[in-house]
């Protein structure tokens, strides 16, 4: 049965009437065209579908819509408009942290989630914060360097 589910999506109030079991990743991609949110595994193991719900990192492929009623959701498309994103994006470019780019939106959301609570993380803390995000191209080192760089360059932003 369908329910009316309302939430803030990248700052805009939206509402849908669907089964509350509908996966958030499908709603974001199909209903709202936010294809920056990727589906890699559909099982919450790869992190390509990561978004922020209420400021917290979640795997949208595992999130039934019923759980996000009355919450605030930020996808990579929303985050892209911020000053923090600019610092991270520059750092990712500088450090060579993007190859095919498929994991990148998820990595950026995980980085943002980390930096929000820990603005000057150590390498081990970055690794732990990204432990739910898989990358098949880079071997992770450049991504970690990028986040260390962004934290330094973006002092005051987080």
């Amino acid at each position, binding site marked *: 049965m369908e329910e009316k589910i309302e939430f803030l999506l990248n700052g805009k109030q939206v509402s849908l009437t669907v089964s509350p079991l*509908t*996966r958030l990743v499908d709603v974001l991609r199909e209903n709202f065209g936010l294809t920056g949110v990727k589906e890699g595994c559909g099982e919450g193991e790869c992190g390509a579908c990561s978004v922020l719900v209420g400021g917290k990192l979640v795997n949208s492929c595992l*999130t039934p819509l019923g759980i996000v009623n009355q919450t605030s959701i930020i996808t990579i498309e929303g985050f892209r408009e911020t000053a923090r994103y600019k610092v991270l994006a520059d750092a990712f470019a500088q450090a060579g942290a993007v190859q095919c780019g498929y994991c990148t939106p998820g990595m950026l959301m995980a980085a943002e989630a980390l930096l929000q609570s820990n603005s000057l993380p150590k390498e081990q803390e970055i690794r732990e914060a990204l432990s739910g995000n898989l990358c098949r191209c880079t071997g992770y080192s450049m991504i970690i360097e990028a986040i260390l760089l962004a934290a330094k360059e973006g002092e005051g932003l987080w």
Partner: protein
Amino acid sequence: MVTTYIPNSLAEALMIKDSDHDVTILAGGTDLMVRYHSGQGLLPEIRKPVLFIGQLAALQQIEKIEKTLYIGAACRLRDVLQHPHVPEILKKAIREMASPAVRNSGTIGGNICNASPAGDTLPPLYVLGASVLIKNLTQSRELSINNFILGPGKVDLRPNELLFSITIPLYEHNVLFYKKVGARKADAISKLSFAGLAKTSGQILKDVKIAFGAVAPRVVRSPELEGLIIGKNISELKGLFPKISKGYAALLQPIDDQRSTIQYRTTVSLNLLEHFLTECCKPKTEAEH
């Protein structure tokens, strides 16, 4: 399309559970959405009505009252991890569970009720002597965790009941050892795990609690074997290692599966046991939680 219920209060949830015994409980959804995963653009293949409980504040409280801690069943693993009064051994297990994103959604109650032989919160809850509080519309009942978990995927929850909270008595220990053995540092199902707590006072081993995970249909804990070493002088412990080890070897029931083998699981479990007992033999200073 299945029926879904999103109650606004615990009372409403209990009423629904009372009138529809067939409902599937969904808290964080991190197990259900995987188990019933259909594919891109499709609803999960849950055939029974679904009762959403993750939004209920009544199930998300963590409270310490004197020497007892109460953790609401729908507390996210992340919130359990961050709470100052949660015992360290439980935190150690949670830190190694899944990933940050899954810990932000998944709940401790979900991990318990899933009752996987490899459930990571379970060995710490067993050694902490945890119990669970179960409610229906009119009554409550309390069970120790080892009586609540009946077998793989099975818990002692009647059709009209919900798991309400987990009770943990807070004792002091000065030896703590937790080890999860998995294929990688995150997002790994345990091949085996070990949780051990002990309290030594001077030369005497005053208390010890040992549990093994993922090596039997349920967590292995033996108050009988623990009784063989409680009260002993730590200088005598080393001599008892072979007997204790043999005792646990008889209780472990590991299997060969895609993650590991009987031989690996048995060998490593007993190695971890010996490591823990060796730690118990070392003279300590003060007790800590």
